[in-house]
């Protein structure tokens, strides 16, 4: 368990060093977007690995963060922190409204409900033209600044993103080690037993789900205020799927799976420029292959390799 904090320290140092070492803005930007993906994936990993529930609408929550914060800053000129806070609160409320009826039930109703919500949100991003700019997108989103200091270069913004990634990981690791984490792990293995020990199963699932959606929204906010222009296709169903692929690829039962999976899938398009039309299918194939041949994901693989090395020495 101490190991997790040590690992996080290593990641933090790497995140501090990389923007300075990387050879150009392009690579820094890749690293920046990787951070955003990992942030969103981290929330989903808590939901899938600890509450045992799937969300197929995380792209929608990601979009809610981006659009609410973006629109408030672009149309009404709200300062970024206030707009961001508003976006986080609104996302938490919507997540609560969806999660409350579905998470009380046994089974996987949340997956279908979030799938539906993701579709609805996408329709809204396209249809509410006066707010979202419709299919042509929303421009004029304010960049982030602290007083007169503008975080408008990839390098500066990258530090903001990764600082939040590290803090979110710290929070999540703490959480898993706390009473709440104990309860979450318990209900993952047996809801019945957990409930007879005084654990309000639905409440804990709901808390994780809402937290998970808030992290997704935070990712969206970071994305919107960096790019300063957003359009609906970024927040479509395929991104929700990609997030699920990240978690499964990285390893469902460890928070570090979100880091590895998120990093891997963020880099994949850089290596496979000509993927284009095949990308959809490749995502699905990765998902199936990992489930069948490597159910523990990359983290599981690394653990096995680690055990082998230790076993031989």
């Amino acid at each position: 368990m101490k190991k997790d904090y040590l690992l996080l320290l290593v990641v933090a140092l790497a995140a501090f060093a990389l923007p300075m070492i990387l050879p150009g803005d392009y690579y820094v930007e890749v690293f920046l977007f990787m951070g955003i993906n990992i942030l969103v994936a981290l929330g989903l990993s808590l939901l899938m690995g600890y509450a045992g529930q799937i969300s197929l609408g995380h792209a929608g929550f990601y979009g809610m963060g981006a659009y609410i914060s973006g629109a408030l800053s672009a149309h009404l000129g709200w300062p970024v922190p206030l707009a961001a806070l508003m976006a986080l609160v609104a996302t938490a409320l919507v997540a609560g409204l969806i999660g409350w009826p579905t998470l009380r039930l046994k089974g996987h109703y949340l997956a279908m409900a979030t799938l539906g919500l993701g579709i609805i949100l996408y329709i809204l991003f396209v249809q509410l033209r006066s707010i979202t700019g419709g299919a042509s997108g929303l421009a004029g989103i304010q960049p982030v600044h602290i007083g007169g200091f503008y975080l408008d270069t990839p390098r500066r913004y990258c530090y903001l993103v990764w600082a939040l990634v590290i803090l979110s990981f710290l929070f999540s690791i703490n959480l898993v080690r706390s009473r709440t984490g104990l309860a979450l792990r318990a209900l993952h293995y047996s809801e019945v037993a957990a409930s007879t020990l005084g654990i309000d199963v639905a409440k804990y699932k709901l808390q994780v789900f809402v937290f998970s959606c808030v992290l997704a929204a935070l990712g969206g906010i970071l994305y919107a205020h960096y790019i300063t222009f957003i359009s609906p296709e970024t927040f479509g169903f395929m991104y929700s799927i990609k997030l699920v692929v990240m978690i499964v690829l990285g390893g469902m039962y460890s928070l570090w799976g979100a880091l590895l999976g998120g990093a891997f899938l963020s880099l994949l398009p850089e290596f496979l420029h000509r993927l284009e039309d095949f990308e959809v299918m490749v995502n699905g194939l990765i998902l199936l292959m990992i489930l069948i041949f490597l159910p523990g994901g990359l983290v599981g693989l690394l653990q096995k390799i680690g055990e082998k090395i230790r076993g031989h020495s």
Partner: protein
Amino acid sequence: MAQLVQYIFAGLTMGVIYALTGVGFNLIYNATGVINFAQGEFVMLGAMFLYTFQEVLHWPPFISLPLVFLMGGLVGVVFEYGVVKPLIRLGVITVIIGTIGASVVLKGGAMLVWGKNALAVEPLISEKPVAFLGASLNTQVLVVLMVTAIAVAIFWYFFGFTILGKAIQACSVNPLAARLAGVPVERMITLSFCFSGALSALAGGLIAPITLAEYDMGTMLALKGFCAAIIGGLGNNPGAMVGGLLLGVMEGLSAGYLSSGYKDALAFLVLILVLFWRPEGLITRGKGERV
């Protein structure tokens, strides 16, 4: 009045598609406890198969449509052996993620094979519209309703009156008892997948001439088929039929009288409301729940 009839029939047409998809969900759910997120892709494949048989190979409808049905059954069986069987021992959540993966593979594959554009499919019968209560009804609508009625009648007979049908039902109620009574449970599960694929593909074949065939039509149809199943109570086939028709008519009316842009939001709203107030479905037969 004429307009109302028009909307209701338009709704019913879509409704039977949702109903068939919902029954497809139920068959797999009853056999394995898994919600199959690739169900919508089965429907999409049905539409694509019909396009291929009819528009590319120019086969007549009375050959194409049954062939779509058979191909759908094949897809269901391949799906069971390729995705569900290898994963089921790892737990239900893993299988569900697997079905999500499979749906993406099918969708991406269909995009590569049939392209990104919506494909037009000729109506199965091209006759003049029929007048009914002042409304003029497209003959395709009548074909959809008739074929579905026949399919439902066959299914009703199959599950209600044949040994095989009863064996499948027995497996879904109590697999252990069914096994002890000598029912080959494995084969019954495969049959469930086969029927589930066949019915969904049939739905796709029926709808293709009305809504066009498109590689990404599946997600939305899955959501609505699932909604139909939930209205009827997950696992309850007659319930899913009623649920599908109900949803279709509601959609038809809201598209007609309110706004067509938000028509697709309705299914989601209904889904959430039903899960909120009556998660066991609106149409329950008053028997004890499964524990």
